[in-house]
């Protein structure tokens, strides 16, 4: 077989194939539920109900989507420049760490503490990605493996801090950091609802990244470097510097997920702060085809699947890992579908 490019794909193709990918994912979900001995339709019902069935559920989904928007944006920004940042998990923890350190150790008043915490988080996350990017631009070391390995190193580093210097003396022996003071926490968006300003910040960041990509010279440079680094270099775009700038933005965005989780939701740092938000950010970004505004939509969808599956698995005999399978499958189906909107498969 062979792939032939399609000059002008029909709307039926550009819309139909992604729809087919979604249908395939749903079919897989049904099969998985059936294997578990549950009624597929009931399972779907429970997932949807668990995700958006009540005010509480919806707020839970929005809360879960918040860090995913940040990590999704981080991955989308990096992948645009073909910078394979698989280390959003480490950058998230770096951000969370700085948030806690600044928030609990400096004793600053709230209005001063919060911006400084956010800024510190961004710097920390950016620095974590800077290392692998310098290794890539200077020595040609593949950033996929280095960013992946840094996730493990960061997890151990956090574990050390939480059992050592950063351990909460009042924590009854649990490895967790001291809690942020009240006034160093992100306020609720609406009084009485469990949704904090981190969500609004995530939306603002999505808008900001979109404007950056489409309207600024840096955005243009990032896209050129990602599409064709050779042509970019020839045209005078400083490829290495653009990659470094991209890394700083990407690492900073991922770190904001850590900031928002700590300052908005949890109030302290534990080593299970992120249930793989960094890795899930890859799925979020890919499902959004790397579009910053699409990231918001896909983060909401992914969060809904997770929250819904958690709730469903409490009621039915279907393990909650169904969510991970579906999202991984959706990713693979979707990249295939998008390819087939541009190419047709021919014999020979």
């Amino acid at each position, binding site marked *: 077989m062979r792939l*032939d*490019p*399609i*000059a002008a794909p029909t709307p039926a193709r550009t819309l139909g194939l992604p729809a087919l990918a979604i249908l395939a994912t749903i079919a897989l979900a049904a099969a998985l539920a059936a294997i578990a001995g549950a009624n597929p339709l009931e399972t779907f019902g429970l997932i949807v109900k668990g995700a958006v069935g009540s005010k509480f559920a919806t707020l839970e989904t929005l809360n879960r989507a918040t860090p995913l928007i940040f990590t999704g944006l981080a991955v989308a920004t990096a992948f645009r420049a073909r910078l394979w940042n698989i280390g959003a998990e480490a950058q998230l923890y770096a951000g969370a760490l700085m948030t806690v350190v600044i928030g609990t150790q400096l004793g600053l008043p709230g209005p001063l503490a919060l911006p400084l915490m956010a800024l510190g988080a961004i710097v920390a996350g950016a620095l974590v990605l800077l290392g692998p990017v310098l290794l890539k631009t200077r020595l040609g070391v593949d950033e996929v493996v280095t960013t992946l390995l840094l996730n493990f190193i960061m997890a151990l580093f956090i574990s050390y801090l939480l059992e050592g210097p950063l351990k909460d003396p009042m924590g009854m022996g649990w490895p967790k950091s001291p809690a942020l003071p009240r006034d160093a926490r992100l306020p609720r968006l609406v009084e009485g609802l469990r949704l904090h300003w981190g969500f609004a910040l995530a939306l603002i960041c999505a808008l900001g990244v979109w404007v950056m990509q489409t*309207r*600024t*010279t*840096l*955005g*243009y*440079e990032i*896209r*050129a470097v990602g*599409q*064709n680094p*050779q*042509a*970019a*270099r*020839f*045209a*005078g775009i*400083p490829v290495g510097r653009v990659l470094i700038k991209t890394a700083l933005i990407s690492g900073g965005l991922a770190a904001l997920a850590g900031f928002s989780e700590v300052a908005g939701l949890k109030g302290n740092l534990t080593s299970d702060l992120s249930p793989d938000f960094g890795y899930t950010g890859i799925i979020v970004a890919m499902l959004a085809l790397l579009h910053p505004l699409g990231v918001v939509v896909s983060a909401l969808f992914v969060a809904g699947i997770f929250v819904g599956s958690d709730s469903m698995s409490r009621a039915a005999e279907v393990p909650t890992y169904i969510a991970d399978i579906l999202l991984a499958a959706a990713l693979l189906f979707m990249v295939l579908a998008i390819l087939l909107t541009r190419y047709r498969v021919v*014999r*020979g």
Partner: protein
Amino acid sequence: MTLQDTARDETVLRLSGITKRFGALTANDAISFSLAKGEVVALLGENGAGKTTLMNILFGHYTADAGEVEVFGQALPPGQPGAALAAGVGMVHQHFTLADNMTVLENVLLGTGSLWSPGLGKPAARRRLQALSEDFGLRVDPDARVAELSVGERQRVEILKALYRDARVLILDEPTAVLTPQEADALFLTLRRMVAQGLSVIFISHKLHEVMAISSRVLVLRHGKLVGEVATHDTDRHQLATLMVGAEITAPAPAEARPGAVLMRLAGLSTTPQGNRPGLRGIDLDIKAGQILGVAGVSGNGQGALADLVSGVTSPSEGRLEIAGDRVEGWNPRAALAAGIGRIPEDRHRTGTVADFTLTENAVLESYRDAPNARAGWMNWSAARRTTEALIAKYDVRCPGSEARIRLLSGGNMQKLILGRVLEAAPRIILANQPVRGLDIGAVTYVQEQLIAARDAGAAVLLISEDLDEILTLSDVIRVISDGRLSPEFARGEKTPAELGQWMAGQGFDHAA
């Protein structure tokens, strides 16, 4: 018909009604011809006429939409190079198909025999390869790594690969494009030996003098159609040219140059070799206003290094680079652009454009930070679009519009956009690296006329080409590059092509140096 006649006219290969479409383009339109034993048939046509497509169908790289290939009376299953090889068809591709990390012998052995056999049987294979080398005058060391071979040697390996598999029909796709005139003559000698032993050859070319020299019959393709089939001794170059292009060819004839000041000077300049590519080795070069300086040479002799240096992609490791008399420090593409150098890169797909960008985005690739395209880090896309639309109109770029992706454009129109991008910046120095490679005659003439016009307006043009004919047509002065060194400067008409060929082969440098 006598018995003797049938023996002489024994048909080894027959193509009937081959049709191949790529999207809206019909690359081959119902083409039929046959090849006799011991015959050299030339397949002549412009770039894009469909020659390579046709041969790729014959060899099984492509599957035809219609038509049939027969070898020795047996229909060839479509789309299977393995079947073509087994039937005795061999192909020497224009872009060599060798694995650089393996030896010559390993490349020859690849795909011969069963994949599942327990050993490679190298000793016997080496003996057979050496025997073939001697029979056909194709000298090459079986145990050399391909990465270390010259272009000419690689071509010999490609031919040996086919002979090792008992090819009875050999297809050569533009085989002389990478050779010196002398190497080309040696190749022709080898081909004559093959024909004498009963092999048949299909020779793809767009060079008339070669076709006249080697073939017994010429097939002419134009826009995917077979427009002519003539015995070589019944035709002449003029008739073939007219058949090939469909009109008389008028090569541009530049008026006498009026050279001015030296705009760019390279003195004792060297660059670091990169991988298999040689660097520059202590070259001196003056590029003057109002003059086209042509650099001739065989592919891979430092043209890439010279182009990279002038376009700012690499910096000198030794020696001096001067622009308008001032020594240059901190050399990079931006510095080159700021110094007034316009660059037409060798590979318009990989270096010149970003395939998934629009025409507008590609048009501003070198000026996206400058007013009116941008201000203080913010893009002004409507201004960029207006600039691009003006450029599209002025340089006659045929396209669906400024917001179409450039990958949809033909090579000629892509090159016109690049040319426009370069010329609109009013460069004082123009680097034109293989500016017309792969273009059809119309686009070739257009690009060449624009370069001559820029020269007449006072620009210094550095033309790098592997096509000696192009160098001879356009250049006011010629220098030959060989293994990273430059020959002395020759005036137009001072040297014959054969003399230049000797320089291209590296002869003469030792005396000069």
